[in-house]
């Protein structure tokens, strides 16, 4: 085994070990994970995803791409789901180390730079949500693997005449198929391709025929799959489909203004600055064609985030891996610079300094991110479990927006709202009513809303108290109308009263 391969395997195993350590040390999952857990559960039970959900929003139609859930369900056949849901995402995200190395190596042909890029990709703070069981865990490794395959398809001859290229082409097409069934964010790759063509035209570069054909096929295939799955959303929401029907009051949380400061923190400062330098030099000074595709992807992501067409954190996750890969180019350039100038005798210090800086600027923030993940506490989960054991099956429960999936997963009861807004006509109204239920001082208003949605149980977790700045309990609960049925750190109230119309 080559020493670089050994180091790469070492980085991969180290990344995986750290990720799994946090995943198993910290109990439970992040809030949004429970939606995916429930879907996998349903697939294991019925073989089908839950497209008509009788519990979410009290009963609604749901559309999402199901590959990730089927993929995990396969593993969950062998090991318990909650264990699989901790191992699989971390294993998948750790493979970014290998993919980043391969892409960097292809672009720079620089061993040390590529290994550093792999290390950065392994410890990007933004991807260190070790307890998140989300589609991103599969999407990110797959999309970068697809990019690697695409870069390898390039060549003057038809891939059909070159067996190696033919393999890359087949792999790319299979990956595209899986990606199209995994996440609509695959659009990023296609928009990146579009910008890549545009940049190539502007720079007078002749576009490779094979590339063009593959891009054309990719675009139409992706659109076709999305059309099949999201036809109803397209028709009902038109172009607003992009904003996923997120209520206007919280849309800024999902699609915030592009902030360089926040990006610096989330991506970590060194890869971010290095990436910016590489993009600038490649575009305006060197016109480096090898990294054109990656730069196009950076432009696509930045543009979409800036126009608020893509969720900021999702785009940043994609963006950060590209910057990690581009770090290899930066390191290569830095090494050349030291070699050419009077600073050449300092060259031997470059690698250790870079490693120390990376350890400080990526590993430490990554660990902080892992420790600060927003998850429900064990006590909160016990409360939702109590609801499952002690409430009737068709009961509706109110908790915060984040806790919506805990109601459907642990309590297996109807919720008022959760963060899957698509295809819900009254999402805006429900969000407004949820806010009222946590902020109003008037019992009549709370009862009116509760009656409208048939809500029987009110859950007040410590997280909810903090979010809505509640000191002890709901301001409107009285012993006559709201019986305290679960009294721990988390409290559960049962509605006893009904509003009567004035005669």
């Amino acid at each position: 085994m080559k020493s670089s391969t050994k180091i790469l395997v070492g980085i991969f195993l180290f990344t995986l070990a750290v990720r799994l350590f946090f995943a198993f040390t910290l109990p439970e999952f992040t809030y949004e994970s429970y939606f995916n857990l429930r879907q996998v559960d349903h697939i294991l039970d019925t073989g089908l995803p839950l497209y008509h959900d009788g519990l979410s929003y009290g009963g609604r139609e749901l559309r999402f791409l199901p590959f990730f859930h089927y993929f995990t369900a396969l593993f969950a056949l062998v090991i318990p789901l909650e264990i699989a849901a901790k191992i699989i995402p971390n294993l998948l995200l750790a493979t970014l180390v290998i993919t980043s190395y391969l892409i960097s190596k292809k672009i720079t042909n620089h061993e040390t730079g590529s290994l550093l890029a792999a290390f950065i990709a392994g410890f990007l703070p933004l991807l260190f949500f070790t307890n998140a069981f989300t589609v991103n865990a599969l999407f990110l490794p797959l999309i970068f693997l697809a990019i690697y395959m695409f870069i390898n398809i390039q060549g003057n001859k038809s891939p059909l005449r070159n067996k190696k290229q033919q393999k890359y082409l087949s792999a790319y097409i299979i990956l595209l198929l899986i990606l199209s069934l995994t996440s609509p964010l695959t659009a990023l790759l296609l928009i990146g391709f579009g910008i890549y063509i545009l940049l190539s035209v502007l720079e007078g570069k002749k576009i490779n025929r094979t590339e063009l054909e593959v891009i054309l096929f990719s675009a139409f295939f992706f659109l076709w799959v999305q059309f099949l799955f999201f036809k109803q959303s397209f028709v009902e929401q038109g172009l607003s489909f992009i904003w996923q029907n997120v209520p206007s009051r919280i849309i800024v949380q999902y699609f915030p203004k592009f902030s360089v400061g926040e990006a610096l923190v989330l991506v970590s400062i060194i890869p971010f600055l290095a990436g910016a330098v590489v993009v600038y030099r490649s575009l305006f000074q060197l016109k480096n064609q090898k990294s054109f595709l990656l730069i196009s992807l950076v432009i696509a992501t930045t543009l979409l985030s800036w126009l608020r067409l893509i969720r900021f954190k999702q785009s940043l996750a994609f963006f950060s891996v590209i910057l990690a890969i581009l770090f290899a180019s930066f390191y290569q350039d830095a090494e050349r610079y030291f070699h050419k100038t009077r600073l050449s005798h300092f060259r031997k210090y470059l690698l250790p300094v870079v490693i120390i800086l990376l350890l400080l600027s990526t590993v430490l923030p990554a660990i902080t991110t892992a420790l600060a993940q927003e998850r429900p506490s064990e006590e909160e989960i016990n409360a939702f479990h109590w609801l499952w054991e002690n409430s009737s099956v068709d009961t509706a429960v109110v908790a915060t927006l984040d806790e919506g999936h805990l109601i459907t997963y642990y309590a297996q009861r109807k919720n008022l709202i959760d963060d899957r807004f698509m295809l819900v006509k009254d999402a805006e109204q429900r969000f407004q009513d949820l806010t009222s239920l946590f902020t109003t001082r008037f019992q009549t208003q709370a009862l009116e809303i509760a009656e409208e949605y048939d809500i029987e149980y009110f859950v007040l977790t410590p997280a909810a108290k903090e979010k809505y700045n509640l000191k002890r309990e709901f301001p409107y609960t009285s012993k006559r109308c709201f019986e305290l049925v679960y009294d721990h750190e988390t409290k559960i109230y049962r509605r006893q009263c009904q509003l009567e119309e004035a005669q």
Partner: protein
Amino acid sequence: MTSNIKIENPFLSHLLSHQRKYLSLLLLIIISIPLLLRSAAQQPLLTGGETYYLLTAAQQGSSYNPLAVLASVIPDAGIFLLSPLLSITTLLLFFHLAKKLELSETTTFLIALFAILSPAFIFSSTTLSSTLGFLFLTLSGFSLLVQENKTKYLSIFPFIIATFFDFYSTALLIILLVSYFVFTKKIRDIFSVLILVIVSALLVTNKLLLKLPIILGPFHIQKIVPDLISDFGGVSGIGLFAFLLAFIGIIVTGKKKIFLWSLPLTVLFIVAFLLNTNTILFISILIICYAAAGLKILYEQHWMLPLLKKATIFLLILGIGFSAVAYLDRLSDYSPSATDQATLNKIKSTQKNGAILSAPENSYYIQYFTGEKTVFNLHQGEYRKEQELAQKIFMATYIEDLFPLLEDNNVSLIYLSSKMKENLPPNQGLIFLLQNERFKLLYSSENTEVWSFIK
């Protein structure tokens, strides 16, 4: 676009040589689906704001629109056949003209196929559409005009009738005639000059004397993107895949003469569409021509990866087909429903002394079924004001805002269709304010309600 693709596949070759039969049959099937579905659900067979506007005009004898005039002499039970007949004849006229103009079989086939599968053409073929009427008359006129014998003189009649729709379509007819005469070098013929003089004179007189609109419509609240791309929920439009294919067509034909010639027409169609989305059929036809050019080029070009070529073309055709199927599914649910018709027939016998308030797009069938005035008439030239008024009325927060608006517009009845009740917020706006004592529920059936407003 005149060269034929060398077709090696015997199935495709057969399809191309018998395209008239197959495509006419396909059109017949496509038109029949929404009509059969509506009939099975006991819904009125006809839908669309323009349909009911023309039917009301036919009842009242208040319009010079050729379709309204025609509808006034056809028995009510047979009116639904008018558009299907017009569209099938239009298709046959296109085949005839394409042959005369020596358009290749492949191009003719692709244009006709994409047109048949386009929501804009499907909508026009199942509703009364002035644009389709104009297209039929224009193609009839040109089919006669291209004859080398004396029958060409008969073309003057369809051209004259075609000037009675609106100012825009008449201007378009003049542009088409001038282009044709210039290309065929007949611009100085006496007959050519005569046609141009008559049509131009009618353009002016119809506008000044008959007060024909600049552009007929719109008959619903306009939304530019959905009205252009039907997959985003518009009333009609073009499928997303046809639209994307048209881009490829524009890129590949960009340097050709034919593209440069079509450029002024493209600009005209875009401007007209932005002003009034009721002109969608015109821009759809242009998009379809570009899409046909795009697909033809994709098919003709040598690809390094032939398997991807087949897959891409297959996906494109599948995508265009899916858009059509998805649209047919939606079209059968368009208003008015059987409940709408029954409820409005009940209103007919109610004492009224004012206008009926409903969603702007419902106004035309309400007028037709009840014979009464409605608050909104989007096509009458005050579109923006009416759109704002609708927004103010339906989203009013307080009765102090709502009542003056209802009084100023002499509202006596409020008609809430089930779709309005689905789309309007229940806890605010008009629906919430209906709890006030000045509103009285007169009739309610299957989520459709009629309220009276006590002045």
